[in-house]
């Protein structure tokens, strides 16, 4: 039994250590397949490695681009941040102005006046507290070439409670750089005649203006043209010529009431900056018109004006201004019955003149003081009996308090020596107040 078991073990050992040849070929085959598979995998792996390398390269490229873009974004964000503190706000300059310019500039200027004079009789009721005038001032661009301005004055006067003081069109950009006005306006003659009352340094117009051109100066319908002469000198020159409706519209003044002939006028302004703080202006004016019904231009007015301005500093300045007018006329007057039922017409040759001088000191941002001297020969059609023409003279002193840019108080004392021999002392207290938009024209 023992021997039988040994035989079986030997046979088993023999089977193990002596395998058949078919078993060896199968393993090799497998090995071969595996090698082939390994080779394929190796190829794929190489391919993938190449692919990854390419992709990595691309990624690197993208990274560089990303960095460039990030730099650019940072740069743009920086610019945006700067703009956000300066310009990218919901409201920026300029944009606001668009709607506002559709409406005209409208302002109201109130001129209240308290007057107290020394006349023993006062038939005109001159001692009074009165709203002398309330001006409604309007203006706006009409189109790119022109502008319309109008001033309507309301007053407590029973004769003329409402008056159209000014209404004129200004046409810019005419040939040779000239500018024209047409309508009713104040002529550019001298200094005081061309400005509104609220721009005067005193409460009333200088006597020569009141006597020769009307209590409030001239507002006449007409047309004028101005040009700044660009000569190669340091002197700035501006010439203005115009034609106005004849007369003074009142039975006062050198041109009277008659409108037979229009009034022609011209003005030459000469200005020079003496230095940064001082300027001097010298002007000359010429007017020709008629006072009677014939066709001659028998009234001729020559005017001269001079203004010196000096700024002591930002808050203190001074103005010295003088203006003179000489009137030469050959006025036809009917002064005598010829005894035959007719009249003898005489020409009144006359030469009269008037002038004023004014000094104004702005001594403080809120205060100014000044004085004015007036002298004027009357326009009376007849010479005095003694043949010696006398003149009106006035001495005024005033104090102005500027409450704000839009409110001003002024007190003035005036002593007048009249050619008729009557003297008068008057005290005026004026309040001038502006609301709305009111910009003064630059003379």
């Amino acid at each position: 039994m023992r021997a039988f078991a040994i035989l079986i073990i030997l046979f088993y050992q023999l089977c193990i250590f002596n395998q058949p040849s078919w078993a060896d070929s199968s393993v090799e085959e497998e090995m071969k397949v595996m090698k082939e598979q390994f080779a394929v995998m190796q190829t794929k792996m190489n391919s993938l490695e190449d692919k990854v390398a390419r992709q990595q390269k691309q990624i690197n490229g993208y990274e560089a681009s990303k960095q460039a873009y990030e730099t650019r974004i940072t740069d743009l964000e920086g610019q945006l941040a700067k703009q956000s503190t300066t310009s990218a706000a919901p409201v920026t300059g300029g944009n606001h102005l668009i709607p506002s310019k559709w409406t005209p500039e409208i302002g109201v200027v109130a001129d209240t006046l308290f007057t107290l004079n020394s006349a023993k009789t006062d038939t005109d009721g001159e001692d009074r507290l009165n709203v002398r005038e309330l001006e409604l001032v309007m203006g706006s661009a009409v189109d790119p070439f022109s502008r319309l301005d109008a001033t309507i004055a309301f007053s407590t006067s029973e004769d003329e409670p409402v008056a159209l003081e000014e209404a004129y069109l200004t046409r810019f950009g005419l040939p040779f750089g000239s500018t024209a006005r047409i309508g009713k306006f104040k002529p550019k003659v001298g200094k005081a005649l061309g400005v509104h009352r609220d721009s005067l340094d005193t409460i009333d117009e200088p006597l020569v203006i009141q006597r020769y051109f009307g209590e409030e100066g001239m507002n006449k319908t007409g047309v004028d043209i101005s040009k700044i002469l660009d000569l190669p000198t340091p002197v700035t020159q501006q010439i203005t010529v115009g034609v106005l409706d004849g007369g003074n519209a009142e039975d006062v003044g050198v041109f009277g009431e008659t409108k037979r002939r229009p009034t022609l006028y011209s003005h030459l302004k000469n200005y020079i900056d003496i230095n940064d703080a001082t300027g001097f202006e010298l002007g000359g004016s010429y007017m020709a018109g008629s006072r009677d019904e014939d066709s001659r231009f028998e009234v001729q007015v020559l005017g001269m004006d001079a203004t010196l301005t000096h700024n002591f500093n930002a808050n203190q300045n001074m103005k010295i201004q003088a203006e003179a007018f000489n009137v030469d006329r050959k006025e036809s007057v009917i002064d005598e019955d010829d005894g035959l039922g007719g009249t003898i017409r005489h020409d009144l040759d006359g030469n009269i003149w008037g002038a004023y001088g004014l000094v104004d000191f702005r001594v403080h941002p809120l205060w100014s003081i000044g004085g004015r001297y007036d002298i004027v020969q009357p326009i009376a059609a007849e010479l005095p009996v003694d043949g010696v023409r006398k003149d009106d003279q006035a001495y005024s002193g005033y104090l102005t308090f500027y409450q704000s840019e839009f409110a001003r108080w002024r007190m003035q004392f005036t002593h007048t020596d009249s050619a008729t021999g009557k003297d008068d002392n008057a005290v005026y207290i004026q309040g001038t107040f502006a609301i709305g938009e009111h910009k003064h024209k630059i003379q």
Partner: protein
Amino acid sequence: MKNFILGFLILLFAVPLSFADGDRINIVTTQTIFADLVKQIGKDKVNVSAIASPKYNIHFIQPKPSDIRSVSKADLYVNAGLDLEAWSDPLLEAAGKSKLFRNAEGNVDLSQGIKLLKIPDHPLSRAEGDIHLFGNPHFQMSPENARVMVRTILEKLKEVDSVNASYYEENAKGFLSRLDQKIAEWRNLCADCKGKEIINYHDNIVYFADFLGLKAEQFLEPKPGIPPTPKHMRFLEAYAKAHNITVVATPTYYSQDAAQSLAEKIGGKVVTIAQGVGETPGTDDFFSFFDYNFKQISEGLSLSATDTSLNK
């Protein structure tokens, strides 16, 4: 009469129309700081002059006939727009050159693109003083705003003189590059100003204060355009002591009395903050103008005043 008409015609037509200086562009600005910016970009291709002397309050300039003449010859009119220079429109109308009028092609409004501060948020009344309708118009007081102003000037110069466009661009680039450097320098100098409070005469440094992070909300004027009153001065004295304010700022063109008086009462000092190039010695151009102002405020607040680089 014939002589009268003849004389006028001779004057009107026989005078030379222009004596232009070569091919330079004639530019008139309202303020000196604008003139300097234009000069920095246009350099020798432009003739520049300013209407308003920096020694006077910009609100109340009275243009002279010589200013009218300058504007009548100008190709461009550079201004602050808005409603700061109320005399500007009458000046332009007196000169009669419609192409320079507001919104016309020759009118360069430097407020364009500026982020405005203190824009009214309620219906306005003059009872509030002489306030500005569109926001605070003193935007020239921030150097940051110069970036926008230079861009506006550059575009207009390129438009009217395209032949020299690259020249202007190069100049603008150089200016802006220097501006970047200077702004960093100014911010560094005034770094400690942030959060501090001062009292100013008029509300004209809001952009300056905004640039520095400074607080300037109390003014010697009780309301814009209204001079100091005794009652308001008493209020300011109490306010300054309560808030530990030691600096009272003012430009040169206001009376210095009120500022000096308040400074003495609060134990502080008066500091001059210029509003325009040339207002004080050492403010000859845009950069020296801000050098001066930042040094003034820095020293006034006793901060980093030892940095002498500003004087270079």
